């Protein structure tokens, strides 16, 4: 049997998280097929065909898949699921949205957010905000899995897979896309950035994030935030790093004015090097930081900026 990977893309481009999931899939036995479901998605299709290790790309190019509405995507995946032993998607907000729907329609359990594959039925996944790692064995005939992308390297792009057009139309007509507000940014995406600088409640307001931006410009970094900074309206929701936000694992994570609550640590403690800048020497963030600087961020960050 083969393995089906559901691509994350914006119709024009494949997101790096797809490449991470393909790498995860190479730990299983079987050909790897990638499903690109979208509308006017030939750009994404071409890129998917180049991902190393992929044997076949299935394309469902139709208006009802344009916005990745869970109802339509789930029906599509179920319709083509017969030949697959494993169905994997990245644990992005899209994957988290449609995959459990797929599982329930197939009457199988889902294994969420896996970080390691031990065998075809046994997986590791973090629970309790990453304070415990569970090893779970699944007894269903088909495995439906979401993958924590930071746990697997991204597959290269030097392949050339066969491309097959699907004639599958699934439009349940019970949900409708209205609009989206997607932040346009020249910065790298949080989940695939090499360097991240994040601000917390200590930033005091959104304007002050400018001092982080200047450092980010020099380091080619993405900007993240704690829940408190997002809740307070300093920055938009897509900046949130943590148990219930984005999971990141860059080479360098700089936490500025962030105390280091369990829920925040859950999103960043697998970073290679962690730097914390906080004026409270007892802040829990220092317990995970490789380099801690006890200082007022409003003097330390501009100084850091000047010295880079």
């Amino acid at each position, binding site marked *: 049997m083969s393995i089906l990977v559901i691509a994350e893309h914006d119709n024009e481009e494949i997101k790096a998280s797809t490449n991470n999931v393909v790498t995860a899939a190479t730990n299983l036995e079987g050909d790897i097929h990638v499903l690109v479901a979208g509308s006017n998605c030939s750009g994404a299709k071409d890129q998917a065909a180049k991902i190393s290790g992929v044997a076949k790309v299935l394309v469902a190019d139709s208006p009802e898949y344009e916005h990745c509405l869970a109802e339509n995507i789930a029906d599509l995946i179920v319709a083509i699921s017969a030949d697959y032993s494993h169905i994997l998607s990245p644990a992005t907000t899209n994957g988290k949205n449609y*995959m459990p729907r797929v599982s329930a329609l197939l009457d199988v359990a889902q294994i*969420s957010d896996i970080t390691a594959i031990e065998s075809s039925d046994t997986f590791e996944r973090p629970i309790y905000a990453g304070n415990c790692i569970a090893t*779970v064995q699944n007894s269903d005939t088909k495995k439906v899995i979401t993958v924590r992308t930071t746990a697997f390297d991204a597959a290269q792009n030097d392949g050339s897979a066969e491309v097959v057009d699907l004639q599958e139309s699934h439009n349940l007509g019970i949900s409708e896309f209205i609009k989206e507000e997607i932040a346009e940014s020249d910065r790298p995406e949080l989940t695939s950035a090499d360097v991240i600088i994040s601000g917390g409640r200590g930033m005091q307001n959104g304007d002050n994030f400018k001092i982080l931006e200047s450092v980010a410009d020099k380091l080619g970094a993405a900007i993240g935030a704690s829940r408190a900074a997002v*809740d307070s309206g300093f920055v938009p929701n897509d900046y949130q790093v943590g148990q219930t936000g984005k999971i990141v694992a860059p080479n360098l994570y700089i936490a500025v004015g962030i105390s280091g609550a369990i829920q925040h640590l859950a999103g960043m403690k697998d970073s290679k090097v962690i730097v914390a800048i906080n004026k409270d020497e007892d802040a829990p963030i220092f317990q995970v930081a490789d380099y801690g600087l006890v200082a007022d961020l409003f003097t330390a960050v501009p100084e850091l900026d000047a*010295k880079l």
Partner: protein
Amino acid sequence: MKILVPIKRVVDYNVKVRPKADESGVDLNNVKMAINPFCEIAVEEAVRLKEGGTATEIIAVTVGSSASQEQLRTALALGADRAILVETDIEVEPLAIAKLLKGVVEKESPDLVILGKQAIDGDNNQTSQMLAALTGYAQATFASELKIEGEKALVTREVDGGLQTISVNLPCIVSTDLRLNEPRYASLPNIMKAKQKPLDVIEAVSLGVDIEPRNKTLKVSPPPVREAGIIVETVDDLVDKLKNEAKVIT
């Protein structure tokens, strides 16, 4: 409009949970239990819809052992009208919970089901989507704004790139994200009143669905520990370490 709010009893979010020494499971001895924070947000949203005149009745429901009655009482104190415990001592998985909730949905015929996007114990983020699949209803997950407009719900969702707004037919399943609202605290008089509100107990087996676990936990281990770091005295030191020791900047 009738609203069903499924909730879950979980370890309090302030507790740092550890595996048992023999790695056979999670050490839950004497830890503080609470209503899952996302479920609290779900209850609050339902209460606001009732206060705003959109909803007429709020039913809180949970699947679990009899200890979960405590969390149902919390939901009642926050403003739910009545509660249902679907009782079982098996550790039920999201798929089983969704099947049991489907049974409750069939009995109660709610116009709207609001539940938390994830429980902070298993961090699965599955139940609402599975319930939507089983009932055939539309799903609006990770909601940060919810408006009822006639026969539809207009829901703004928190997605990786920002915000997405969708319109779904009622009845539908909504899962809450953190910024949907800020839940109130239950007042003492409301906690007292909650004790008088109806709480029905039904046996999970009476719903006639397969709730046997499909996932077997082989072990629960601690995450890799990070080696202790150092405190640097100055920004110069920091830059030097990052360049020459960690080599993460140039």
